[in-house]
C-alpha cells in the first residue's frame, strides 16, 4: 500500500467524478441503513455498532479495494443473527438488499479510477444484476419465513443435503476462482 499524504487525499476527493461520489455515498449509507432496519425491526438502537460500522464504511469509501468492506458486512450480519427477530419481518430482506447494494457499490468503485466516468450501459448492467440478486434474496426470505411459520422439526437428511450443496458450491467457487489461465507473455 502506498502511503498517501494529506494532499493526496484532498486531491482524491476533489478529483472524484459525480458517479464516484454516488458510489462512495452508497458505500457509507447502505451498511448504516441495514443497522437502522435492524433497529426498526426490534425497536432499539445499537449505538456502538452504528459507530463501528460508520467508521468502517467511511474507511471502505476511501479505500474500496481493501478488506474494510468485509468487516462491515461481518459486523452487520453478526448483529442481525444475534438479535431476536422474526424472520418474517420485511426489514430483513431490506437489510440484505442494502448490504448487496453496498457490496456492488464497493466492487464497482474499486475497479474504477476516482475521476472516471462510467458508461451508462455499464451502470445499467450492474443495476440489472443487483436487481436479480435482490430478487433471489427476496425469494429466499419468502421461503425461509414460510418454513419458519410451519415450525418443522429438524431433519438430518435435509441438513446433510444442504451441507453437501453448500460444500459443493464452495468447492466449485474455489476451483474457478483460483484457476490459472495459463502463461501470459507480453503482447
Amino acid at each position, binding site marked *: 500500500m502506498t502511503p498517501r499524504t494529506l494532499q493526496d487525499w484532498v486531491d482524491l476527493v476533489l478529483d472524484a467524478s459525480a458517479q464516484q461520489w454516488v458510489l462512495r455515498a452508497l458505500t457509507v449509507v447502505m451498511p448504516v441503513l441495514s443497522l437502522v432496519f435492524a433497529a426498526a425491526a426490534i425497536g432499539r438502537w445499537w449505538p456502538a455498532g452504528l459507530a463501528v460500522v460508520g467508521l468502517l464504511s467511511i474507511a471502505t469509501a476511501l479505500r474500496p*479495494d481493501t*478488506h474494510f*468492506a*468485509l468487516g462491515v*458486512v*461481518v459486523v452487520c*450480519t453478526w448483529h*442481525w*443473527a444475534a438479535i431476536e427477530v422474526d*424472520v418474517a419481518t420485511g426489514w*430483513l430482506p431490506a*437489510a*440484505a*438488499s442494502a*448490504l*448487496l447494494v453496498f*457490496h*456492488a457499490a*464497493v*466492487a464497482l468503485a*474499486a*475497479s*474504477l*479510477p*476516482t*475521476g*472516471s*466516468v*462510467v458508461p451508462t*450501459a*455499464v451502470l445499467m448492467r450492474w443495476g440489472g*444484476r443487483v436487481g436479480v*440478486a*435482490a430478487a*433471489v*434474496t427476496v425469494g*429466499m*426470505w419468502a421461503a*425461509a*419465513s414460510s*418454513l*419458519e411459520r410451519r415450525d418443522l422439526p429438524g431433519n438430518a437428511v435435509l*441438513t446433510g443435503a*444442504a*451441507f453437501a450443496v*453448500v460444500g459443493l*458450491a*464452495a468447492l*466449485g*467457487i474455489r476451483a474457478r*476462482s*483460483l*484457476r*490459472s*489461465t*495459463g502463461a*501470459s*507473455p*507480453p*503482447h
Partner: protein
Amino acid sequence: MSLQTTMRWRLSPAHARAALIGVVGTAIAVLFRVPELLVLATPFAVVAVWSAATRPTAEPVGRGRLAPAEVREGQGTTWSMSLSGLDRVDHAVALVPPRQWLELTPRLGAVVGDVADTEVRLALTVRTIRWGRHGLGSANVVAVSSWGAFRWMALDTDRPVTALPLPPVFHAEQSTHRGDGLVGVNRSTRPGDGQDFAAIRPFQPGDRLRRINWRRTQRDGALRVTATHADEDIHVELVVDATADYGHSEGIDGDASSLDASVRAAGAIAEHFLTRGDRVSLRIIGSRPVSLRPGAGSRHLRRLLEVLAAIDRDTLTRRSPSTDGGPIDHGSLVMVLSPLVAPAVVHHAHAVAGRGLDVAVIDTLPDGVHRDEDRATALAWRIRLLERHGERRALQRAGVPVVRWRGAGSLDPFLRALARRRGVPRMVRT
C-alpha cells in the same frame, strides 16, 4: 514491445468477500438454524456463484498506439489501447498518469470502456503544452469481469511524443544583406538580373534589350536601361544558447523561460527564411553541442525543429559550454539567440563579429527573472544583470546589434541596419 502484462486474471477483494460471506454465512445458517443469516448471506452467495461461473477464461490481447507521435506544441495526439479477446469481460479501464507538459482529456487520464462485444478501444487525447520530447509514462490497462470479481492488468509503457516548437508568427519586412549566390528571393547588393529596381542608367554593351526603358530613352534621346539588383539566397546561421534555462516556463499558454523563447524564436526565424528559399543552419551551444548543416526546404525545417525539440534542459550543465561547432561560411548571417548570461556565448558573438560576419544577438532573457524571495539570490541577479548590461553595450560598440525578441518584426531594425551597412568597409580581425 511496449505492452507488458503484469498480472493474469486475479480475484479481487470483492470476490473474496462475496465468497466468504456467501459460503460461511450459509453454512452457519444451516448448521445452527439461523434463517436470518441465510437471508443475509443469500445475495453474497448469488454474487459469488455468478462471478465464478462467468470468470473470463482467456487472456486479453492489447495493442497500444500513440499517433501521431510528432506534433507541434499545443497540438494534441491520441493514445489508444485496443483490447481483444475480452470474453466475459464487463468493462475495461485505462489510466494514464498525469505528466508534466502533457494535458490529458479526460483531465485525469482515466477512461472506461463498455465491453459490449469481445473488443473495446480505450482512447484519450494528449495535448503537448511545451516543446520537447515527452514520455507518456506507464498507462495502466485493466479488464474487469462481472461483479468486479476478477481483474486483468497490463502496462503500456514508454510511448514518446515529440512536440516541435511552435514558432510565433514572424516576418521581416526588410530585405537582407549580401550573399555569394545569384539565386534566391533576396535583393543582392550587386547589380544584375533581378526584380528589385536599382537605377536608370545609360545603355552599355551587354545589356539585354528587354531592359531598355523606352519611355526614358524617348525623352532623353539616348538609350537608357532599367538596372536591377541581382536576386540571391542567403545563409542564416542560428546559434541557440542552451547552456541554461532562466525564468519560469508555463508551456505554450503561459510565461516563457529563456530557453522557451530561444527555441521558439529559432524555429520562427528558421521557418521564415526557409519558406523564402534561403538556407539555414543551426548550432546549439550547451553541454551537448549539436550542429545542423545548412539546408533548405520544408524537410530541412522539420529536421531543424526536431533538433530544437531534442534540447533537454534537464541535462543542461553550468560547466563551460563548447562554442566550437565548426567553421561558419563567409557571408553568412549569424543570429545568436541567448539570454546573455553565460559569458562564453557573449565571447562567441564577439569572435564571430570579429571575423567580419554579420551578427545579431537576440536577447531572450525573460522580464523579472531577477525577482527572487531569497534576498541574496535577488542581489546576485541584480549584480549579474549590471554586468550583463555592460556586456550588451560592449557588443553594440563592436557593431553587433542586440535586440529583444518580441515576435513579428523583431529583427526589422537589425536587418535595416545591415542593409545600410552594405558596402561599407569593415575591419576584420585575423
